[in-house]
């Protein structure tokens, strides 16, 4: 069991099963590439910008584009995504998409069957972690992954806590580069 302490202590001590911490963008990219029906769920924290003026949502869109991953827009993110020239594949709020995902018979965003890997990006860490807990306990048919700069113990795969935003951005850029490389 990992001994990582999450950035936000409200997420601490979830019990028995906590996320595997992965720091290597290549490993992360491989997990994503291996997935047959991945889904990227984006949240309102991605509406913020980095210090050098890049909208965080652009990272999400790049990741989705690199591997043709469908996007689920939560909260009010749809508007911004459309402004950035992308039509999200579906619009649900966090609890709604989690509720659908936990049903093994749900046919998924593309109606091709439920997703096997769900990536969460930009959701408040307390709400996000609770949603991940739902999937951890009630959706054994899929794996979850987070792309935020903090550790999410209820996920299957999580990034560590990044002290510096620049390090996290570097990770995301590397990840995107690796996803673009193909197999």
């Amino acid at each position, binding site marked *: 069991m990992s001994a990582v302490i999450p950035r936000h202590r409200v997420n601490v001590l*979830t019990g028995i099963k906590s996320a595997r911490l992965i720091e290597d963008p290549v490993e992360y990219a491989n997990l994503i590439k291996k997935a047959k029906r991945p889904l990227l769920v984006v949240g309102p924290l991605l509406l913020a910008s980095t210090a050098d003026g890049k909208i965080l949502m652009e990272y999400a869109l790049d990741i989705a584009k690199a591997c043709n991953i469908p996007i689920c827009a939560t909260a*009010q993110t749809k508007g911004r995504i459309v402004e950035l020239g992308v039509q999200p594949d579906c619009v649900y709020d966090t609890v709604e998409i989690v*509720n659908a995902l936990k049903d093994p018979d749900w046919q998924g965003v593309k109606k091709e069957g439920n997703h096997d890997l769900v990536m969460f990006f930009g959701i408040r860490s307390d709400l996000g972690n609770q949603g991940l807990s739902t999937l951890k*306990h009630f959706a054994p048919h899929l794996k979850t992954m987070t792309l935020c700069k903090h550790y999410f113990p209820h996920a299957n795969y999580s990034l560590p806590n990044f002290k510096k935003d620049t390090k996290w951005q570097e990770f995301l850029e590397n990840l995107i580069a690796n996803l673009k490389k193909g197999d």
Partner: protein
Amino acid sequence: MAVAEKKLSKKLEEIHERIKAEVPWEPLGPTPMPEIPDLRQWDMRLLKTYAPFYAPFCDLCCFCTYGKCDLTEGRRGACGIDIATQQARFVLLACLMGCSAHSAHAGHILEFLIEKHGPDKKIDLGGSINIEAPNIRTVVGLKPETLGDLQIALEYVFKEIAHLLDSCHTGQEGSALDYESKALHAGMLDHVGMEVADIAQIVGFNYPTCVADTPLVDMGWGAIDKSKPVILVSGHNPATSTVLIDYLREHNLEDQVEVCGLCCTALETTRYSDKAKIVGPLSRALFFMRAGIADVIMTDEQCIRTDTPQEAAKVGSALIASLDKAMYGLEDATEMDTDEIVRRMVDNKEQFAILDSPKAAEVAVRVAMKIAPQRKKEWLTEEEAIELAKKCTNCGMCEQVCPNLFNIGGGITEVAKGNFDLIRQQFLQCIGCGKCEEECPNNVSIFKIMQTAASMETWKCRAGRGPIMDTEIRNVGAPLTLGTIPGVIALVGCSNYPNIEDIADMVDEFARRKYIVVLTGCAAMVAGMKKDKDGLTVYEKYPPDFDGGGVVNIGSCVANAHISGAAIKIANIFAALPLRGNYEVMADYVLNRVGACGVAWGAYSQKAASIGTGFNRLGVPVVLGPHSSKYRRLFLSRKEEDDWKVMDARKREIVDTVEPAPEHLAYVCETKEKAMPMMAKLCIRRNDTPQGRAIKLNHYISLYRKYIGAGLPEDIHLFVRRDADIPLVYKKEVRAHLQEIGWQPREPIGLPTLIGTYPTKVPVDAVIH
């Protein structure tokens, strides 16, 4: 079989006796004083569409000495329980705590008032309120005429609580759904308990009733004259604070001593005296105590802080615990000589529990007057704040423990540079838990520094007015059930907000759109804590009427019973359905025909859990803020997959409406922006007339565009039954969209009801008026 029937009728006989069934004010329905199984079928019908959604906080259970038990990956505990059922048990426990808090509060007030006035004191809520107790009448089947009658209702609640709590014991209930049914039962009981409490308070303390235009009272620390002795009352139970006001009045001291309140006691006290002031919601409690403005702090019960004695001692405020719920390990001075208590509090700085209200009130005033002149009550200056902030190394420890997850260290670092912008913003988001300061390795006085961020502005809050008048119900009944008043938005509950200003924004948005906006508890206060560009709060900007575009402060937490009561009254007064012992019919009516949506944006407490769950059983959906994902359970539908069949009671046939209306019963939103269109959507009901539906959809679409973005809501097709439902302004666009996706018109339903779609004793005829 014969024996069982005989037993049942004996039981029923007893119930009939207790509720005075022979008094023929209305025919008696099937479920007076319902017990756990009696409304279970209704619950199961609700839970079929609005299935429980669990988000466990933890993988384990540690309830008994068999544990800890690991409940991951399908494992069961040593007692046999699984993770879902354990979550449901937890929710039931939370609801029981909440329900007990209100009911015990009611019990305490009743005891106090019966001692004063006797059990035969008549209940009279004024000429415009004949249905004085819609929850009690519906659930208990009793029409309470005296304080003594209220006791009968309360005894029923206490008995049910014991049975429900029993079921939480290890090794019993093995079904999450049954635990949820029990939680719904607890929630319903809570509304009975709250109703008892508030009716007793109105009768016993002569609170205003049958007046919409209650006084506007001052709010905010800036409103408090700290040159006078200041007494802070904190909690929910007005038994002591009202006696305190009496004491000041009797001794002509009302203008010489400032009385201010935190949380619901503040709301209660301002219903009693418009000279009293509201400091703010629970989220400002620690901040205000640490500012040291209060000379005496008087605690009562619920939502006070457990560290109040320590915090009071730190800043030299005297402390009196006035209720048995929180005695803090203090010496019980109830029997002690008053002079002696005052002397020891002043000379030795001792703190006491004083459970006799008149004595506690006298001591509070005398101590405050003695110690106030010696105490320094200064607000921190910006220069001092900059000095204090220089200790911060921006290590980030505070952020890690902040429940709102924000970078308080960054705010403090900015203060050290003389920039207060960030800390001001953070103060609006701060829920006042004090975890940051506790964690800080450099002992930065974060709360003190926040004094410079806290606006000295004063605001206005309208004093709580209690029940909605029957006349108002008559006026809004038709427009509400037809949809021309687009809905009732009830902003209730605590102050665990993502941002304190969200509430005022929500009120403004919906009052402007001519919804009826009602508020209780901390939400009722913070609604007034923001001014528009003309310097007006929502209470000054909008009329206080229960009508489209009105903004109504109902009162404290226990006044929530008047909101559920108003929904019941719409069924009873407007639709003329009998309510007596007729809960299922009332709830079915509300679910299908009353477009109301609760919003507990900052819900944190167990009380909020039971209030919300009680609304859910009555068919009122509730939107919760992001923190509430930590309640572990929601009630969500899957709109395109779930069962939206109803009985059309006029045609006697089951119809698939396709309409998810209302879509969810307990739902968490991450942001205000998402919540706004959701609130509008949750006011849609199946019986809306085309005109009403068009109005509702107009708001849904326009809120969606304002807060989410261009285009149409993804689910708009589910809510358009026929072309006439489409709002005029969006006609072209919606038509084009519907055509594109191959939408087909549907027949509207004459009289939608769930009765007849599940096994119940209630005949379909019962819903026809």
